[in-house]
């Protein structure tokens, strides 16, 4: 799709995607607790979830800069 003047890739999509993913991950604990009766301690869950999310963000960022160098 190169050459399409309308196609503008921005980091806005990454930010929004990240926040939506964060909310989904956050709700996952509620789903585990309410639907499956699995009580994961918030003190454990939230730091781990946050670490995973930040890891994903860093990885995504690294991949994107590699991609743009190649492209």
């Amino acid at each position, binding site marked *: 799709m190169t050459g*399409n003047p*309308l196609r*503008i890739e921005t980091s806005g999509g990454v930010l929004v995607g990240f926040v939506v993913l964060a909310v989904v991950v956050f709700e996952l604990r509620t789903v585990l607790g*309410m639907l499956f009766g699995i009580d994961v301690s918030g003190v454990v869950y939230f730091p781990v979830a946050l670490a995973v999310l930040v890891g994903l963000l860093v990885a995504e960022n690294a991949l994107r800069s590699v991609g743009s160098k190649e492209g």
Partner: protein
Amino acid sequence: MNEGMVSADDGATHGDLERSVSAPPDQADVDRTLSHEEFDPKGTLALILVYFAILVGMWVFMYFVEFLGNGLTVVG
């Protein structure tokens, strides 16, 4: 007749900054022009089927597990 179109120009001349974050430029430049007949919103259908599945699943859980399992049912 489209309703009260102001002008054909849509702010396309404001440079990349404007364009990347604001409304897209004039639709005369579009990559593809899709009419109602040739446009199948299959992505929308997929998304909404996922939503449908979530709704049904959550409803069943809320009604039959949370509500009916909640004790002290009002019977009269």
